[in-house]
């Protein structure tokens, strides 16, 4: 049982011993080739009702091609962590994939706000720090972690965060429950066929999410030799045994930016931000998702080589991203 109720608040929680057993029995440590299509990865690893997290945001290094595939496969009743996210919440809600959102930061454009007001999705406000800490607890195998924020705010009342007394000082401390998502999406710069993965630049909680989740799908701009990782272990963000599927997805973060690879497509982002109503939403989803078979066709027919060349050309800050 992974969903708990605390009054009228529902929260995702798994007893650490249950997650540990899953890790022992279901997460292979064997180096097996995991390269597959987004279609196969999502159909095999994402089910209706799943709890989904991703890193980073729809503007920067977000797993946008995987999100679009989830929409294409019309998953239902998903629960997502809208952590530092932007448009994903709106798109997944507009597509009818999502019914619950842990917030985070609820993105922008008025569509998602309206959806909340109309009761289309149920939100629980944990704050960005609260969600990041829940992920860390999930990764560290402890049922909770303490923090000195959330206290005194209404986020305490609309989430399952609690106040405990610190045994050393008597201080009131906020505690948040561990989060062990069903699936984590991570879009990375480089991966090998086994799942070793590298992110260049900052991340929200890439390693935490990979360790804390039941299943992990990595989409990568570039597939490199496994040898590369062992030659530079400080650069490894995620080791292969935390990963279930590897999808080769050039421009996988489009319309967002991939640091040092391609820039954000601002005109496209403006279209997203402009979505106000159901009609505009469905039109956008039709054009960018339903009417194309996969990410490759999307890039081909909806983005185009010229645009991709342009965005690659704009990515002129590469310092540090290696």
């Amino acid at each position, binding site marked *: 049982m992974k969903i708990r109720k605390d009054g009228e608040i529902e929260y995702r929680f798994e007893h650490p011993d249950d997650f540990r057993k899953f890790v022992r029995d279901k997460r292979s440590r064997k180096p097996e080739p995991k390269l597959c299509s987004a279609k196969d990865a999502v159909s095999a690893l994402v089910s209706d009702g799943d709890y989904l997290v991703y890193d980073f945001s729809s503007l920067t290094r977000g797993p946008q091609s995987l999100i679009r595939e989830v929409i294409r496969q019309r998953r239902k009743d998903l629960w997502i962590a809208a952590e530092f996210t932007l448009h994903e919440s709106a798109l997944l809600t507009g597509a009818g994939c999502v019914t619950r959102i842990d917030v985070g*930061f609820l993105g922008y454009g008025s569509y998602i706000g309206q959806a909340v007001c109309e009761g289309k999705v149920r939100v629980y406000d944990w704050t960005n720090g609260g969600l990041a800490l829940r992920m860390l607890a999930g990764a560290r195998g402890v049922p909770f972690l303490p923090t000195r*924020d959330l206290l005194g*705010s209404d986020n305490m009342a609309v989430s399952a965060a609690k106040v405990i007394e610190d045994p050393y000082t008597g201080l009131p401390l906020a505690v948040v429950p561990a989060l062990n998502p069903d699936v984590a999406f991570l879009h990375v710069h480089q991966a090998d066929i086994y799942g070793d993965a590298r992110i260049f*630049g900052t991340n929200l909680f890439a390693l935490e999410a990979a360790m804390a989740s039941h299943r992990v799908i990595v989409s990568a701009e570039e597939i490199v030799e496994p040898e590369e990782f062992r030659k530079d272990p400080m650069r490894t963000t995620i080791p292969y045994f935390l990963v279930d599927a590897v999808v080769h997805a050039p421009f996988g973060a489009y319309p967002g930016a991939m*640091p040092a690879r391609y820039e954000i497509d601002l005109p496209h982002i403006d279209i997203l931000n402009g979505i106000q109503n159901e009609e505009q939403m469905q039109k956008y989803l039709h054009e960018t998702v339903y009417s194309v078979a996969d990410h490759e066709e999307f890039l081909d027919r909806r983005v185009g080589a010229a645009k991709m060349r342009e965005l690659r050309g704009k990515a002129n800050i590469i310092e540090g991203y290696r």
Partner: protein
Amino acid sequence: MSRMVEFTDTEFMIAQGARLLEDGKTFFVGWGIPQVVAILGQKLYVPNVIQLFEFGAIGPQSVLPFVRGTMGGPQNTYRSLQWLNMNWAFAYSAAGYMDYGMLGALQVDPYGNINSTFLGGTYRMPKRRFAGSGGGNQVASHCWKTIIVIRHEGRRFVPKVDFLTSPGYLTGPGAREKAGLPAGTGPYRVVTSKGLFGFDDETKRMILLAVLRGLDPGEVVGDMAFRPLISKEIREISPPTEEELRLLREEIDPSRFLIRGERMSAPA
């Protein structure tokens, strides 16, 4: 009479914010306007300010022009001292390393409590729903001095916020400490499009400190839905300087994405 300067309310708030920063201190930068405040401040007044972003950029030196929608991208993580992640970013603030934080707000109450979650109705059935805390709750909880930036519209200054997203002084003196928040922290200034507020040491209530040159303090507080304290001597805030406006308009935000707003003018 002296020459009038033309500017937007946003430009004025950004200029005010930039003037409040302290050199050689750390500054936890929130989404949007605070990003531009940090850039303007670092260029003009506080070259050694250390910016920190919740997504793990420690001490970046943003590239100009400011490109909208690049939170976390190469432009605003450029030349950082260190790239980490969110749990480390909030560790820096939780351990006391962040001197200033800056946040926007939908509503603010007399104690500087911030609402950025919803307006009207109830949490479950709000009239209007917004982004929520993001990392704002952590910034307002951890940073030593939090600066709130809010457009000066009376309805935004309410006796009680619809939702307490990020903590100010809660219910008054001692309430933060009683709640378990780090001692000695709290809202420091409220930058509006008409003036500048602080917080009274004794009551922890918002107090008007200064108004834009040419404005009448009475009018400034007149349309506020709560009555703030008013300092004995109200300082005068000069409008954005030519240099501030030039940087904002020509170098930082030439696309006018962030600095646009309501037109204002004041004597230079």
